C-alpha cells in the first residue's frame, strides 16, 4: 500500500509492530518510512464484507467446466463452481509444508478434485476423501475445470 502521508509504498501485512501481543488482529499499519499510522482496508472485517458483497454483483463470476477461463483455463479452486470436477495444475503458491500435508490426502498436481461446499467451511473431495479446509487454502490451488490425465514421465511404478 501507499502511505497517505509520505507516499512511500510498502507491504502492509506485517502490521504495526510484531512485538505487540495484539498485533495479529490489529487493522492499523505503520509506514516504515515516516511512522504514519493508517488503516489497511484489506484487514478490516467490515470493509472486507462490503467488498465481497460488491464483488458478488460486479466481480468475476465463478467458472463452469465449460465456461470462460483465463490463463490456459487455469483458475483458483475457490472460484470453481460447486460439484464440478477439476484437475489440479499448480500448487506453487502453497508453502511446502502445507503442500506436503495435503499431498498425504492425495492432493497434488494432476489430482482430480471437486468442491462440495463453500460454507461454513469449504469441503473438497479428492477421490473418496472429503476434506474440510480453510478458505485461504483454496486460493493457493490452481485448477483446470474438467478431468485431465497427466502425461509426465515421473511417477510410474515398477516392480523390482
Amino acid at each position: 500500500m501507499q502511505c497517505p502521508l509520505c507516499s512511500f509504498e510498502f507491504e502492509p501485512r506485517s502490521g504495526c509492530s510484531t512485538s505487540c501481543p495484539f498485533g495479529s488482529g490489529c487493522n492499523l499499519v505503520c509506514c516504515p518510512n515516516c511512522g504514519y499510522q493508517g488503516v489497511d482496508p484489506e484487514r478490516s472485517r467490515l470493509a472486507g464484507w462490503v467488498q465481497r458483497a460488491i464483488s458478488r454483483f460486479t466481480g468475476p463470476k465463478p467458472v463452469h467446466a465449460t465456461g470462460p477461463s483465463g490463463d490456459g483455463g487455469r483458475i483458483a479452486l475457490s472460484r470453481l463452481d460447486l460439484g464440478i470436477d477439476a484437475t489440479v495444475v499448480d500448487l506453487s503458491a502453497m508453502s511446502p509444508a502445507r503442500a506436503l500435508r495435503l499431498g498425504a490426502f492425495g492432493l497434488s498436481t494432476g489430482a482430480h478434485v471437486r468442491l462440495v461446499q463453500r460454507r461454513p467451511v469449504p469441503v473438497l473431495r479428492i477421490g473418496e476423501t472429503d476434506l474440510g479446509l480453510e478458505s485461504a487454502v483454496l486460493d493457493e490451488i490452481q485448477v483446470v475445470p474438467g478431468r485431465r490425465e497427466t502425461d509426465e514421465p515421473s511417477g510410474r511404478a515398477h516392480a523390482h
Partner: protein
Amino acid sequence: MLLGNANVGKSALFGALSGRYVSVSNYPGTTVEVASGVVGRNGSSRALLDTPGIQSLHAVSPDEVVTRNIVLSGDPGAVLLVIDAKNLQRGLLLALEAGEAGIPIVVALNMADEADRKGIEIDVPKLSALLGVPVVRAVAPRREGIEEIRTRLGHAAPIRLRVEYPPAVERAVERVGEVIGGSRPASRLAALLSLAGDDALLTDLSVAGHAEIAVLREALGFELGLPAASVIQRARLEAARRTAAEVLRRRPTAESLPERLARLAIHPAWGWPILGLVLYAVYLFVGVFGAGTLVDFFEETVFGGWINPVVTSAVTRWIPIPLIADFLVGDYGVVTMALTYSVAIVLPIVSTFFLAFSLLEDSGYLPRLAVMLDRPFRRMGLNGKAVLPMILGLGCDTMATMTTRILETRKERIQVTLLLALGVPCSAQLGVLLGMMAGLSTAAIAVWAVVIVGTMVAVGALAARLLPGTSSDFILELPPLRRPGLVNITLKTLARVEWYLKEVIPVFVIGTAILFALAGTGALSVIQEALSPLVVGWLGLPVEATEALLVGFLRRDYGAAGLFAMARTGGLDFVQITVSLVVVTLFMPCIANVLMIVKEYGSRVALAVVAVVFPLAFLMGGLVRLFFQAFPGLFS
C-alpha cells in the same frame, strides 16, 4: 504392527485380531498411544502393536512421530498395512511410502463392505501381484478376513512396487543416505523424508549433517525447478493413481441415506438445525432421563429407601465404636456421602452420557461438528480441529488433554489444554450441571452460558495472542456417516463406566475421608471461617458450600455433586445456583487432569494453568453475583 491412515479401522482390526478392546471411533485421533496385544494361537502367537493413524510417514503431529519412529527403527516386525477399501489410492500412497522402508508388509483392505455398497470393486489378486505382498479383504466388525490375515502375516514381504523418481532425486537420495548412514535400517525412507524436509527426523535419529542435507535439498529443488518435497510427493501420487486405476472398477450407485445425511450435517443452512437437534437429544437423554429420572430412582429409592437404612441399621447394631460408625454412615460417611454421591448421583448421569457420546463417536458426526464450529473456534484463536479434543473433554478432560496431541502445534495444544481445564465440563460434571439447571429459569441458564462461553472466548483469544508459536491449518478429513454398531457402543460404554468406577470412586472416598477428618478435628469450621469472605462475602453462597468447593479441588464433579445435593434440598436459591454453576464449571477438572498436564507439557505449564483457572473461577462467580444484585427483578 498395524499401520494405516487415520480412520481406516485399525483399532477395530486390532480388537478382532488380538481379542483386546481398544477405543474405536469414527473420527481421526482415537489412538494417540501405542496399544499392544497378542495375535495368533497354538504356539505361533506374536505381539501386535496398534499405532496412531497417520496421514503419511512425514510426521507433523506427535502421534505421527510415534508411528514413524517405529517404522524407521528397522524392526517393526511384520506390518499389517490397513487400507480403507473405499479409498484405495490414498492407502496405496502410504503403502508406497512404507514400501521405501523395505519392511515386510501384509495389506488389509478393510471396510470392504462399505466399498461394495459404493460400487467399488477391487481386483485383490491383481493388486497382490502388483505389490508383491499378500492382500486380504476384511470387514473387522464382522471378523471377515481375520483368520486369513492371521495366516498371511507369516508370509509378509517387502513391497516390490517401487516409485520411479526422476534421476536427480535418486542421486540425491543416495548422497543423503551416505550422510545419515547407509547401513541404518530403512535408510532409503529416511533419506526421502529428509529430502522432503522432515528435519525433526534427523534429530530423532541423532544424525548430524542437517546443513549438508539442507544444501542437497536446495540444490535438488533448483535442478528440478520445484521443491524436492513436491516432486517426491507427485511421483508417489502418480504411481498410486496408476496402480489404483489398474485394479479398481466402479459401478454407478445412487446417493444413500447416510451419504445424504452426511451432506446435510455440514450444510450451511441445514447443518445448524441438525446440530441443535443432536444437542437437544443429548440433553433429553442425559439431562432429563439420566440426571432426572435415573438419579431420582437411585438416590431416593435405591440408596435412600434400601441401601442407606439397611447399612445404617447394620452398622449401628454391629459396630459399637462411634468413630468408625460415623465414618461409614455419618454426615461425611463413606456410604452415606461418597457412595451416594458417586453411585446414586453421578454414575447414572455419566452412564447415559457415555452411551450418548459413544453413539455420536461411532456415527461419524463429530468431525462434522468440527466443520460447523470452525468459525466460532476461530474467535478463540483456534480452528475446527480443536473441537475434537474439546468434545472429548465432555467425556473426560484428562483423556482429552492427552488427545490434544492430534493438534499440530505446541501453541494450539497448550491453548486447548487450558480451555479444557477452564471451562469444558467432563461427563460426570456435565450431567450434574444439567441437573442443577433443571431448577433454573431460561434467563439464568443464558447468563451461565454467556459467562462460560464469554470467558472461554476471552481466555482463548488472549492465549492465542500471548502464547508464542504458530497455529496450524484447518485440514480435517470427514469420514462417512455410519450406523453405530451395537456391540462396539456397548463395549465402549462399559469400558468407560469401568474406568469411572475405578478412578472416581476412590477419589470420592478419599475426599469424604478428608472432610470427615476436617470435621472431626474442628478444622472444617476453621477453614469455613477463613474462606467465609470468599465463599459467603464474595460469592454469596452459604458457608456449607465451602465443603463442596474443598472437595471440588480433588474433582470438580464431586464439588458439583455436593452443590447439586444442596440445590435439590432447597439449600441454594436461584442466584446461588447460578453462581455455583459458574464457579464449579470454571474449576480445574481434577487432580488427575493436573498430573496429565504435568506429564504432557511439564510442571511450569501445569502451574500456569492452575494459576489462571482457580482465581478466574472465583472472579467470574463473584461478578455474576454482582450482576444479579444490580438487576434483582430481571431473572427471578
